[in-house]
C-alpha cells in the first residue's frame, strides 16, 4: 500500500512562510495534482516529499512509514523533473536503467524493465543514443521511462510538460494518462496549468500562498469552488463574481428570485460559471451589457457587465449577439455558487 499522508507540513524560508500547515491524504493508486500559481508552494511541497528539501515541521508518511529525515534514495519513490534532468553522459538505455542499476538488479531484469518502460513511452528506437541527440519531447519521454522503470510506489512529477510546445503537451498529456492508468502508481503531479490538472487528475489540490484551498474531484472543484481564489483560478474563462444585494433572504435575478444561504448580510457574491446561462427575453432574464462579442467557432464568448461588474459568459455558437447589445440571461440555479463577500469562502450549495 502506498497511500501518502502529508501531516501539517510547514516550511519557512527566513521570515517567509512558503507552506503553512499543509495536510493532504493521497490514496493508493491515486493521481493527485498540486495546482496553483507560481510561488504558491506546490513545488516546495513536492521537493519535501522527495527529500530534496527539508520541512520546518510536520510529517510525511508513505504507507504508514514516516519518511521525513530519510535520504531521497530510501523513500521508494521516483521523480520526473521539470527540465527532464536526463543524464547527458549516458545513453537513453543507461538513463532508463539508472535506478535499477543502483538497486543492483541483475542484467536480465534491467533489460526487461528498460524494454518495458521504453515500449510504454515509445522510445525503443533511441535506446543507444545520447540525450543531446533527442528533442525536448523525446527527453521528457526518457525521463518518464526512467521513473517508471523502477516501478516506484510513488511517482512525483514536477511540471513535466511545461517545457514542451502546446501541441506536444496535449499529446504527452493523453499519453501520460494512458501509461499511468495502466501502471496504477500513486502519483503527485505539480502544475500551474489548470487544463492539465483537470484532464489528468483523480483529485486536485488547489494551493495558494502556502495553503491548500480546496481538494476534490476536478468537476466538483470546477462547479463548486471552495473559495473565490479557486473559482477564479480554475476554468477558462474564470468564474464570474457578481456582488448582489440580498432582501428577505432572496436575490433578484431578472424576474426570478434566488434563495441564498441563511445568515448572510445584505450583500452576497454570486459565483457564476460563464456557460451556466442561457439567453432569455429581457424582463425575465438578468440584464447584461455586452461590450465585446467574440465568435470562437465552437462557442460565442461575450465580455460585458452585469450590475456594472465585469463578467464573461459563453453562449452556443448558434446565437447571434453583437458588440454593444443588451441581452437578458437566465441563470442555471443549480450551478450557482454563493460566496461570502468578506471571507471569499463559498457557502454550501442550497437547494431550491
Amino acid at each position, binding site marked *: 500500500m502506498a497511500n501518502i499522508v502529508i501531516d501539517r507540513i510547514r516550511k519557512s524560508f527566513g521570515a517567509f512562510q512558503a507552506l503553512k500547515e499543509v495536510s493532504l491524504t493521497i490514496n493508493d493508486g491515486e493521481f493527485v495534482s498540486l495546482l496553483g500559481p507560481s510561488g504558491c508552494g506546490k513545488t516546495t511541497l513536492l521537493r519535501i516529499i522527495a527529500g*530534496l528539501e527539508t520541512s520546518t515541521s510536520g510529517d510525511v508518511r508513505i504507507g504508514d512509514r514516516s519518511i521525513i529525515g530519510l535520504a531521497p*534514495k530510501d523513500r521508494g519513490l521516483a*521523480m520526473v523533473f521539470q527540465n527532464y534532468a536526463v543524464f547527458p*553522459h549516458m545513453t537513453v538505455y543507461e538513463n532508463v536503467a539508472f535506478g535499477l542499476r543502483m538497486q543492483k538488479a541483475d542484467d536480465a531484469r534491467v533489460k526487461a524493465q528498460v524494454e518495458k518502460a521504453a515500449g510504454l513511452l515509445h522510445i525503443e528506437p533511441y535506446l543507444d543514443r545520447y540525450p*543531446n541527440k533527442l528533442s525536448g519531447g523525446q527527453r521528457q519521454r526518457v525521463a518518464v521511462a526512467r521513473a517508471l522503470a523502477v516501478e516506484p510506489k510513488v511517482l512525483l512529477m514536477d511540471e513535466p510538460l511545461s517545457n514542451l510546445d502546446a501541441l506536444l503537451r496535449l499529446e504527452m498529456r493523453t499519453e501520460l494518462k494512458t501509461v499511468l492508468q495502466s501502471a496504477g502508481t500513486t502519483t503527485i503531479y505539480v502544475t500551474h496549468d489548470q487544463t492539465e490538472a483537470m484532464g489528468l487528475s483523480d483529485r486536485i489540490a488547489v494551493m495558494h500562498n502556502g495553503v491548500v484551498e480546496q481538494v476534490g474531484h476536478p468537476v466538483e472543484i470546477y462547479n463548486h469552488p471552495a473559495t473565490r481564489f479557486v473559482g477564479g483560478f480554475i476554468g477558462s474563462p474564470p468564474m464570474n463574481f457578481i456582488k448582489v444585494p440580498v432582501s428577505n433572504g432572496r436575490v433578484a435575478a431578472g424576474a426570478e428570485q434566488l434563495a441564498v444561504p441563511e445568515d448572510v448580510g445584505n450583500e452576497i457574491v454570486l459565483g457564476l460559471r460563464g456557460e451556466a446561462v442561457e439567453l432569455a427575453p429581457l424582463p425575465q432574464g438578468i440584464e447584461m451589457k455586452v461590450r465585446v462579442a467574440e465568435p470562437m467557432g465552437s462557442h460565442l464568448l461575450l465580455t460585458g457587465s452585469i450590475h456594472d461588474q465585469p463578467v464573461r459568459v459563453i453562449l452556443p455558437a448558434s446565437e447571434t449577439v453583437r458588440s454593444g447589445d443588451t441581452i437578458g440571461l437566465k441563470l442555471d440555479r443549480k450551478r450557482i455558487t454563493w460566496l461570502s463577500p468578506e471571507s471569499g469562502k463559498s457557502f454550501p450549495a442550497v437547494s431550491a
Partner: protein
Amino acid sequence: MSTETMSATETASRPASFASSRRWLLWSGIAALCAWVLVPIYLVALGALGGRQGVYIWPKTGLPTGISLEPFILFLKTEGVVQSFLNSLGAAGITVALSILLGAPAGYALARYDFRGKDSYRLLVLLTRAFPLAILALPLTVSFIRLGLYDTIIGVGLIHTVLALPFAALVTQGIFLGVPKELEEAAWVFGCTRVQAFFKVVAPLALPGIVATAVFAFVISWNEVFAASVLTVRNRTLTAYLLTVLSESPMHYRFAGGLMLILPSVVFIFAVRRYLFAIWGISSK
C-alpha cells in the same frame, strides 16, 4: 585550400561567394593562430637541433638543414639536466594532484552550498595571490629550513600548489555551477548517496573542466622560477636550473634548454586534449 576557394569565388554566385569568403576567413584565422604557436617552437627546435654552426648561420634559411639529435643529446648528458627535469615533473605532479584534490572540493562547496561568509571566503582565496612571493621568500626559506622542507621537491610542490590552488578552486566552482543541480537531485532520487551521485553524475560531466584546471596547475608549476630558485640549492627544478646554468652556456645549449621546457607542456596538453573538449555537452537544456 586557398586556390580552391579562389577559383570558387570567381565562378560562384553571390551567396556562394559570401560562404566561401567566410570559409577563407576561417581557415586563414586558423593558419595564423597555428603559426603563432608553432613558428616559435619550430625556431627553438631548429636552434636546439642545428648544433653550434646552425645557431650562428646568417642569413637564416629557416629550413631544417644540418639537423641532428646530437647537440640535444649532448645537452641532456650535461650534469643535472635530467635530474632537474625529473624534479620539475615531480613538483608539477604534486601541484596538479594537490590543487585538484583540495581545489575541486572547495569549488564544489562554493558552487552547491550556501554558507555564512561565502563571499569573504572567495575573496580570501584570491587574497593568497595578493602577497608577492619576493616578500614571502625569506620567511618561507626560514620556516622551510625548520620544517625540513628546504631544498626538497615536496617543498617546491607545496609552494606551487599555493599558487595554483586559488585558481583551481574558483575555476572548478564555475565548472560545478555548469552541471545542473537537477541532475544531481535526479541521481539522489534514483538511488545514489551524495558521494555516489558526485562520482556517477557530477564528476563525469565536470571532467573536461577539471582536466583543464589540471593543465593550468601543471603549467603554473612548470613555468614557475622564482620560488623554485629561492627554495632549492641542489634539487633544482628545470626552470631554476636553466636560469643559473644557461647564462654561461653556448647558444645552442640555451635553445636545447628552451625546447626541453616547452615540450612537456605540449605533450601533456596533447595527451589530455580529449578531455578538454566537452564530449557530451554539459547542458541538458
